[in-house]
């Protein structure tokens, strides 16, 4: 997730200084996601360098400097908000790497791996469902949508492990028939 546009978005309401940005960011994500303060400051500097934000007033107490959006920044934010995501599919889970590697290993532990992975997905589904319920109860409709997204991803992953298992079974079958 891009910190740059997140910060721009947070600055639409009012100018903020670095620490406030961190706090608000975390609260936006709804609980216990931590954001590195160093990353925040670095990004703020970049944004200022690129002319998307500017300092808002003088350094206040304890040397905190607030920033606000520039026109350019506002426009950039609008563009980004209205643009759909077209980056390539990010497959970040380790399982994909393990999959690619294990086909080079001939010791047949792939299906056990997939079975264990499957269990993880099942438990994750349960947990995500619970989180969704809680978010709805707390009135956080935005989080509801987020969790729904995560659930659908997990369902897809689950389907994928089943598909892998079937492929393996079929190729074993063919192997048996050939020999």
């Amino acid at each position, binding site marked *: *997730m*891009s*910190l*740059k*546009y*997140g910060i721009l978005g947070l600055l639409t309401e009012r100018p903020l200084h670095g620490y406030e940005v961190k706090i608000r*960011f975390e609260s936006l*994500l*709804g*609980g*216990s*996601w931590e*954001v*590195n303060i160093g*990353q925040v400051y*670095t*990004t703020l500097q*970049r944004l200022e360098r690129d002319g998307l934000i500017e300092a808002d007033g003088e350094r206040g107490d304890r040397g905190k400097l607030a920033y606000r959006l520039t026109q350019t920044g506002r426009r950039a934010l609008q563009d980004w908000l209205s643009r759909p995501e077209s980056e390539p599919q990010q497959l970040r889970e380790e399982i994909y790497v393990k999959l690619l590697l294990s086909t080079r290993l001939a010791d047949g532990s792939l299906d056990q791996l997939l*079975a264990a992975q*499957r*269990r993880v997905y*099942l*438990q*994750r*589904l*349960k*947990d*995500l*469902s*619970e*989180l969704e319920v809680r978010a709805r109860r707390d009135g956080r409709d935005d*989080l509801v949508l*987020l*969790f729904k997204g*995560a*659930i659908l991803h997990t*369902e897809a992953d*689950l389907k994928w492990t*089943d598909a892998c*298992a*079937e492929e393996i*079974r079929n190729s074993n079958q063919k192997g048996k028939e050939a020999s």
Partner: protein
Amino acid sequence: MTRLVEMTEVRKVYDGGAEHPALNGVALGIDRGEFVAVMGPSGSGKSTLLNLIAGLDRPTSGRVVVDGRDLGRAGEAELARYRRDRVGFVFQFFNLLGSLTVLENVMVPAQLAGRSRAAARGRAQELLQKLGIADQAHRYPARLSGGQQQRAAIARALVNQPLLLLADEPTGALDTRSGEQVMDLLVDLNRGGQTVLLVTHDAKLATRYARRVVSLIDGRVADDVVLQPSAAQPADVVRIRVEEAAG
């Protein structure tokens, strides 16, 4: 202590399908008071499994023993009585009898068991009350919403105090809201001691409500796992990566 349902080496082959048995060596046990979900894609054999436990069909080989009774050995009449007294059904499409009122529908299993009309009516009304649709008692099923119909079906399933409540895609024909209400109901009943067996293709449904998930693939049990009650924090489950923008 014997388990409520004990399936051993169960195979089911349909005529002409010898190469692809619907169930191919299934072993499964269910204890009293459990809430088990049997999950699998279409063709996995979950409907067949349900039919066998329900006494709607007999295994080709292997044993299906429910409450000490070997269903494979029972005659048609005996199976019918078993279904009447020991099992409660909840179907995806409700399967209420359109020509009877809701109350009459719920009374049917009791009447089939020979209970008097008055006794059956009393029990049915009690259940409708408990399930929150007492005011629909004298209407015909077609007039009720999906959720209400399913609740009526659940009432009907409970009328003879079955050992086992079988739900086959109970939310499949319902909107999300009603579906959740129905599932919550099943969870409630389970908390009260009712053994529930849920059959579904929806992993989300299975994992959300059931304690134990049995995965069927190609007629075999691929997995049988008890899930932990969820106390997770979001960060344990979902990671939102925040990174610097490149340039």
